[in-house]
Each structure stands twice: as structure tokens, then as C-alpha cells.
């Protein structure tokens, strides 16, 4: 059996290519938070306590727009609702773990680590395979804390003109490279994207993410069912 450390570093290596776009994302977060008026300590604590790029950016956006705490918290919850599905997907591989390990794995269950570890968890059967997810999550944790820190220091020195925020959708786009060739996935991708784009202003509380995802999943359910019937 592979040692815990071997599996951990497999996770580190697998997730590393996805860390490059996290760098500008973390810097942008640090710069924005200071700009809005959070203290350096508060900004650093957000990255340590929340540890979620999308959640933290939503928090900043709504806070600077003067939204109430209740709206901010429920919006963060809505943006995070995708983690419920990640958790549901990986839970079958983690059901035998002790509570403390479930808590640790949960803290590290982020987009990039999920995307890379999901495949690993499906294709491997050794007991310690969850170390792959911890390795990926820990890698992102270090990059996220470091870049937040440098973002705080850099302040407004980073030119907005560089358009680094575009790195965010590009990262998520790159996570889907394996799905671009599958017809059902492409249909689901377009439907979810369109629902989110047109629902952005119509669906309250930033819930467009979860609404679009549920519509996408529903379509996937129908399409995969009808394909089976034809066979």
C-alpha cells in the first residue's frame, strides 16, 4: 500500500497546475479587501477562516455595496451550495473515516482539490486515498494564504488594467477540459451557463449559481435517461 505521504504528494502534484491562476485571484482579493476598508488582520483572517475564493469575493462585493449581514451570509451560503454537491460526490469514499478526519477533509474541500481528487478517489481503492484530497487542499491553502498576504502588502500597486479577474472564469473553464468532447456535458454546460447569465439579475440573493446548477443537473438526468432508453 502507498504511504500516506506518497498519496499526499500525489495530490500536491495533481493540483499544482491549477494553482497558477489562484495566484492573481489571491492577490486581487488582498488588494480589494484593503481598498474597501478591511484591516490587514481582518483580511488575513477571512482567508484563514473562510478559505474560499468565491465566498470571499462575494463577501467583499456585497459589503462594499452596503448589503446587510443577513444578505451577505445567505449569499455566501448560496455561492457555497456547490460544496454540498462536492461533499455528496466524495462522501462515499469518506464514510469510514473518523469525525476528526471528516472535519479536516471538509475544510480542504475546495473547487480545485475536488476536481483533481474526484478522479483519483474513483480510480483508487486503498484506505488512505483521502490524503490525495488533503494534499491538494493544503497546496491551495498555502498558495491562498501567501497571495492574500502579498495582496495586502501590494495594496493598490497592481494595475487594474491587467484584467487579472479574468483568470477566475479561465480557471473554472480549464477544469472542464475533459468534458468538452462529451455531447451531454456540452449541453449541460451551455444550459447552466445561460441560466446563470440571464438569471444573474433576476434571481435574488446571488442564488443564480445554485439555480443554474440544479437546472443543469436536471437536464443531465433527463438526457442520460433518454439515451439509455434508446439503447
Amino acid at each position: 500500500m502507498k504511504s500516506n505521504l506518497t498519496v499526499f504528494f500525489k495530490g500536491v502534484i495533481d493540483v499544482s497546475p491549477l494553482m497558477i491562476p489562484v495566484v492573481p485571484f489571491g492577490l486581487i482579493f488582498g488588494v480589494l479587501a484593503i481598498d474597501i476598508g478591511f484591516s490587514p488582520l481582518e483580511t488575513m483572517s477571512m482567508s484563514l477562516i473562510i478559505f474560499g475564493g468565491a465566498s470571499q469575493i462575494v463577501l467583499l462585493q456585497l459589503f462594499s455595496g452596503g448589503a446587510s449581514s443577513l444578505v451577505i451570509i445567505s449569499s455566501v451560503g448560496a455561492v457555497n451550495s456547490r460544496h454540498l454537491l462536492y461533499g455528496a460526490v466524495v462522501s462515499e469514499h469518506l464514510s469510514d473515516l473518523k469525525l476528526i478526519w471528516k472535519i479536516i477533509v471538509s475544510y480542504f474541500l475546495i473547487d480545485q482539490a475536488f476536481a483533481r481528487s474526484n478522479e483519483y478517489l474513483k480510480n483508487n481503492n486503498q484506505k488512505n486515498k483521502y490524503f490525495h484530497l488533503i494534499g491538494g487542499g493544503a497546496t491551495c491553502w498555502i498558495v491562498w494564504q501567501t497571495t492574500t498576504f502579498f495582496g495586502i502588502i501590494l495594496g493598490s500597486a497592481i494595475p487594474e488594467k491587467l484584467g487579472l479577474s479574468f483568470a477566475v472564469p479561465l480557471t473554472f473553464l480549464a477544469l472542464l477540459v475533459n468534458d468538452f468532447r462529451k455531447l451531454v456535458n456540452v449541453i449541460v454546460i451551455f444550459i447552466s451557463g445561460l441560466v446563470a447569465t440571464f438569471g444573474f439579475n433576476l434571481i435574488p440573493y446571488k442564488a443564480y449559481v445554485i439555480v443554474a446548477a440544479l437546472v443543469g443537473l436536471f437536464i443531465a438526468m433527463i438526457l442520460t435517461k433518454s439515451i439509455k432508453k434508446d439503447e
Partner: protein
Amino acid sequence: MSDWVLIICCGFITFLTRFSMIALLKKEMFNDRIREVLSFVPSAIFPAIIFPAIFLDNSGSLQFEDNPKILASIIAVIIGILSKNILATIVGGLSTYWFLIFI
């Protein structure tokens, strides 16, 4: 509500969404059909973040003209289909974007 309480609440709800399913679901609750549908989760969720970030401007309205992000994303998708490489997709998209806005 102070900033600190807000930050801690946001952290707690983020953790809760990650933890709840891992803590509650049991292995026996999954069959092949559920697994098949759940394999579409990335395809269903990521576009909800991608599309608005590409097609909407800062004020939240649709922007098709004079939007270099659209062409850069198309190039990124083509590179992704051809190479199946995550890093090449990101680098290709970002360099196309910089090429378009600076030249």
C-alpha cells in the same frame, strides 16, 4: 453586526456546506444512477461561474461588443479540446486576452 462576527459566520456557513454531506451521507445511499448524475456536477456548476464572468460587465448587463473575454475564452476552449491540458488552456486564454487588450 461587527465585521468579525460577519467573517466568522461566513466561515461557518462555508465549512457547513462542505461538511454536512460528508458527515450525513452513508455509502449505502449511493447507486450507479445517482453516481452517474453526480458525475455531471462540475459541468452543471462551473459554467454558472464562467458565463456571467465572461458575458456580463461590472454593472451586470450583457456585453457582446468590444469584449475581448469572449474571443479569449473561445481560444481557451479550442486549446482545451485539442490539448486536454489544464495549464495550456489557462495560459492560452490569458495570453490571448492580454494580446487583445494591449495590442
